[in-house]
């Protein structure tokens, strides 16, 4: 158990700066998740923390001690890899005991700790088997067990579930969450699956192009994304974006004319200048269908996805290339090509300025809709 601090940490491969200087604090017992699109540097960041890559600048502190020059074998961390990386020539027991034996732990202590970890992960009955006789899910359990045994300061996971099928992934996700609860250890988990991030994390770190875009709790990121990228990345189905122009501001309100027709008024004291191009983001659950034609935006149904308890309606609107998704409760049947009226709940709207940064008041008041065309 430990806390981790990064101070201006950066990493370059040759001339390419893969990680831009970044600060980060992960506190004791926290479950931190690094998310971001492929190639954004998640693995590199994790591997630099692990000591498998040398940092190019800045400091890594574990419990306040600088470890940049400490070998990865001496940092006291453990890592679970995407491809499990079990030693093929060792039994499951030997795999789990390897680290302890290297550390010259007494024999009965080794047995005790391996058995304990095996019990937690319910793999006691396969300790004598070899990795190649195990299924993917079982192998991943062993890999996790191997890191538990060593009682590391911090657990590192690099996309541990992405080689598993969907059902197993959900199951293992729950187990990892429970494991964190049981052990109370500090864990850092890399994934590009934002559902994993939302469900597991105490703290999500969103990365893009080697830069930290935002750090916060899952709901913080969901409710108050700092910028357009985070807004689009967190949440599934993703946030809808509509272009617009500021047509009036003042009185703590900002009125935006949408390119697709219609207007939105948000409470915003520090609004952009009138005439500035902005983007309005709205999550599918804040888009609804129906209502009077003069109160909403005219849209055409592209297709509907029936999920049973809810329906995702993909809509096309004037002036927007991508489809707008509306999440509607219950089972709604709409033929594609049908014209509908789309309503946007102003309390669910986010305003992003030209640079993509979110503009919002420290404490958001209830916005009101003012729509007419």
């Amino acid at each position: 158990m430990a806390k981790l601090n990064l101070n201006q940490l950066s990493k370059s491969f040759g001339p390419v700066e893969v990680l831009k200087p970044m600060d980060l604090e992960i506190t004791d017992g926290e479950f931190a998740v690094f998310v971001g699109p492929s190639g954004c540097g998640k693995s590199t960041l994790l591997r630099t923390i692990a000591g498998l890559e040398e940092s190019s600048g800045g400091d890594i502190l574990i419990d306040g001690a600088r470890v940049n020059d400490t070998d990865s074998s001496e940092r006291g961390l453990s890592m679970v890899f995407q491809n499990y990386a079990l030693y093929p020539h060792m039994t499951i027991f030997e795999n789990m005991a390897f680290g302890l034996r290297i550390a010259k732990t007494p024999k009965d202590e080794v047995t005790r700790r391996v058995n304990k970890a095996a019990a937690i992960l319910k793999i006691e009955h396969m300790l004598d088997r070899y990795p190649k006789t195990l299924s993917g899910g079982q192998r991943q359990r062993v890999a996790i067990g191997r890191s538990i045994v060593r009682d590391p300061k911090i657990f590192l996971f690099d996309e541990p579930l992405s080689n598993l099928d969907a059902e197993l992934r959900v199951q293992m996700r729950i187990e990892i969450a429970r494991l964190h609860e049981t052990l109370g250890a500090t864990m850092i988990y890399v994934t590009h699956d934002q559902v994993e991030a939302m469900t597991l994390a105490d703290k999500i770190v969103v990365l893009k192009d080697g830069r930290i875009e935002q750090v916060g709790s899952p709901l913080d990121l969901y409710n108050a994304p700092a910028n357009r990228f985070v807004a689009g990345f967190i949440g599934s189905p993703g946030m809808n974006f509509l272009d617009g122009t500021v047509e009036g501001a003042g009185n703590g309100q900002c009125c935006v004319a949408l390119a697709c027709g219609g207007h939105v008024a948000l409470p915003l004291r520090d609004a952009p200048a009138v005439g500035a191009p902005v983007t309005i983001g709205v999550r599918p659950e804040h888009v609804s269908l129906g209502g009077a034609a003069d109160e909403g935006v005219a849209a055409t149904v592209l297709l509907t996805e029936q999920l049973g308890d809810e329906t995702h309606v993909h809509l096309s609107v004037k002036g927007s290339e991508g489809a707008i998704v509306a999440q509607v409760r219950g089972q709604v049947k709409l033929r594609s090509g049908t014209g509908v009226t789309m309503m946007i709940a102003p309390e669910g709207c986010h305003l992003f300025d030209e640079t993509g940064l979110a503009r919002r008041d420290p404490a958001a008041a209830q916005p009101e809709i003012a729509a007419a065309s």
Partner: protein
Amino acid sequence: MKTRSVKDRSVALLAWVFMAGVTFLFLYPFWWMIVSSFRSQEAMLLEPTRLLPESFNTRAYGDIQTLGGVKLWLYTFNSVFITVAATLIAVGVTALGAYALYRKPDLPGFRFIQFGFLMTMMYPAMLLVIPVYLVVFQLGLLGTYAGIILFLSLMPILFLMLVQFFRSIPKELIESAKMDGASEMQIFRKIVLPISKPILATVFLIGFLLNWKQWLPILVIATSPDQYTLPVALLSMNTELGIDFQATMALAAITTVPIIVLFLFTQRRVIGGFVAGAVKG
């Protein structure tokens, strides 16, 4: 449909006959060698292509017990000793070197070693013997087992096969051991070495076969027939020791048959190893 299957069958038959012919072409010289070693020269002159000897005339095998003043068992001993020693050294040295080069190709000096090795690989192997003769002369190792073994233990093909294998080890395996607290030495001894056992066996086999064949370096570095191996003794029979045909075939059989047997028992490994070294080298 019917004509198609008739045609298919005749094509298959043609392939069968053709490949039987090819197989015969590749096996017959070996058979001819063994049969001839049991037949007198006169019998050979009368009927060169007899498939079985008329009687097992083992005169030649008796005659070659001493060749050029050296006992056959000494040639055999030299062959086994030099081949095993050179191959063991080659496998050990090359495996360690290939592992180090695979793990840290960028360490200061390593590029130079790899470059030097590359050059050695490209120098026409037969002609390398000429300057090697000069080096061995300067080292004072002419006419010694050490000189012969040292040169034979430089085996590029083993390097290619080993590097190929090391590259196929997932790097997470090594990183995982690092995270488990293992030092580089422990990683090598407890992870890499155990999983390399099969490839080391293959590489040893191939090295053995290749070194058993060697003759020119031994002929050049040796100073007397005391250091000759079976193939070198066979060659000196080809030139100096007259033209006792039957005896030549007997010695050729002694040189070859053990290798054929070894190869037949290990063919999967050997062919697989050769292919791995060549296809991906």
